[in-house]
């Protein structure tokens, strides 16, 4: 925080008001080492997710039954698993599903949550109270358990996980949007709009929505981190992407029984992949929040 408000920068802005555009949020972000580190890791995994099997040195699905449980070596950087599949290739290809599912789930939650939050905050009344209680109840149960309950009832598949995580996020995002809308609702431009005789949907989506976009953006990145967390956990518990499709959580679940036998590379590398992805998202989120707050 202190590094961006140093005397030289403010001096320039004060002396030449015309150049104040230099300190756009984007430029502030690019000055933060934590943001750059997070964005670089994130970019790496996005590239892996897009190209997947094309850049992996081996076929992630190819089993070599004569080369099972091989330690990390020059031929197999991260070793091979119980079926002789190349762990490095599976880690690279495994980036795709977790990123796609988490992004889709967060988008579902953000779109629905924003719509509900706008209605709750602007119209208030019975809808506000009812949804408020529902949010409270959902929050009283750990996120993973709620998701878990519905995934068990509906069956395990990537689609079910996406929808369930999206729905679980909806009330949480709705609550954040609602409080942002409540702040906006007291401002003059809204009374003016009402006096002009604008209809409620127009006011909500055209007047208020653009003003709460920063809040929604921050909430989206925060939720994306949680989505990856939840999706990884559900995959590990066996409710996500099913084997043999490469998937970090699923691969850990399939191989962690061999930890006792000392085959640590089969689980450690997918685990580090998940850790690097969530930490990267967290670094980006933290920087965005700090820049918007300053």
């Amino acid at each position: 925080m202190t590094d961006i408000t140093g005397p030289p920068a403010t001096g320039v802005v004060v002396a030449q008001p015309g150049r104040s555009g230099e300190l756009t949020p984007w430029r502030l972000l690019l000055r933060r080492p934590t943001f750059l580190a997070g964005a670089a890791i994130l970019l790496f995994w996005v590239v892996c997710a897009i190209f997947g099997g094309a850049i992996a040195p081996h076929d992630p699905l190819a089993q070599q039954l004569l080369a099972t449980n091989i330690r990390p070596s020059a031929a197999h950087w991260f070793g091979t698993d119980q079926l002789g599949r190349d762990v490095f290739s599976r880690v690279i290809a495994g980036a795709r599903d977790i990123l796609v599912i988490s992004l889709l789930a967060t988008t579902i939650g953000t779109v629905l949550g924003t719509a509900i939050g706008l209605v709750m905050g602007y119209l208030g009344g019975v809808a506000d109270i009812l949804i408020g209680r529902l949010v409270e109840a959902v929050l009283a149960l750990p996120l993973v358990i709620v998701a878990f309950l519905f995934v068990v009832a509906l069956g395990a598949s990537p689609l079910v996980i996406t929808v369930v995580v999206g729905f679980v996020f909806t009330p949480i995002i709705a609550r954040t949007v609602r409080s942002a809308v409540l702040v906006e609702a007291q401002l003059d431009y809204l009374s003016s709009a009402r006096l002009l005789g604008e209809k409620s949907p127009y006011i909500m989506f055209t007047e208020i929505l653009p003003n709460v976009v920063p809040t929604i953006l921050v909430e989206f990145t925060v939720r994306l981190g949680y989505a990856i967390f939840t999706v990884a956990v559900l995959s590990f518990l066996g409710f996500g992407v099913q084997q043999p499709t490469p998937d970090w959580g699923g691969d850990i679940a399939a191989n962690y029984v061999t930890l006792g036998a000392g085959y640590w590379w089969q689980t450690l590398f997918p685990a580090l992949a998940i850790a690097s992805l969530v930490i990267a998202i967290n670094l980006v989120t933290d920087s965005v929040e700090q820049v918007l707050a300053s």
Partner: protein
Amino acid sequence: MATYLAKRIGLALVTLWIISLIVFFAGQVLPGDPGRAILGNLAAESSVRALDHQLGVDRPLLTQYWTWLTGLLHGNFGMSTQFRLPVEPFLRAALVNSLKLAVLAFVIVVPLGILGGVLAALSYGHMTDRVISVTGLSFATVPEFVSGIVVIVIFAVGLKLLPVSAAAGPGASPLSQLQHLILPAIPLILILFGYIARMARAGTIEALNSDYARTATLKGLKRSVVIRRHVLRNALLPTITVIATQTGYLIGGLVVVETLFNYQGIGNLIYKAAGTKDFPMLEAGVLLIGVVYLVATLIADVLSTLLNPRLRLGNSG
């Protein structure tokens, strides 16, 4: 105070009721035909219908919900379909095991988290602050099974210091039990550390910038006295509330940690019930988690009211 307490308990009961609706909906309505699920695809339609009738799932939903709810209120949590035994003894044994693990994690993480948060606040904006805040929050976002794998690889596989499994044999000494619980506690500690440290940091920063802290400094008190007597006492209040709300999360984390370390706690029980479609066990377990969470937040609310004179003597009570 009494009115406040009554209102607070009332709200908790409403929340609990909504949770029961969610659980009932997910557990009884969504799975479709329980008789078909138990007997399989090849069973005759007549025997499926007979079993449905025996289980009572062919009655109207409201009747089913009412029977289920009144049963719960009478302490009847239902019969486990996998063990064909009442659910309650299983829940009780699992809850005791989970409590052991949770208490161990809490005993370690609460002082550590508060210490980390206060240290960060005292060096606000400097390197120490950034390091503690960023590492704390990073750890808080890493799923438990991921950090669990890393600590297993380091301490159990690499250094061979601690056992991989959390379950000590039957009749194991408390010391041996503790030894088995250390590794599973670490993932929980890592996640909780970030949240507790963040709250302690925010509370301390606010107290440091307050008028009373400035007054204490201006009247010539030493910095250590100001911090100990004026800042910390006020800073730690909100932290208590956060610690209590984290119990809910903690139980979610237990599902994963207990599965990874094969520990017979409530999380593992729910997970296994889910795997065998044992819905009575699953529902009772999830509901129990909701109750534990609501009781914990209630205690935290009451505690922070009692500790804070402004709330205690305010017009609210």
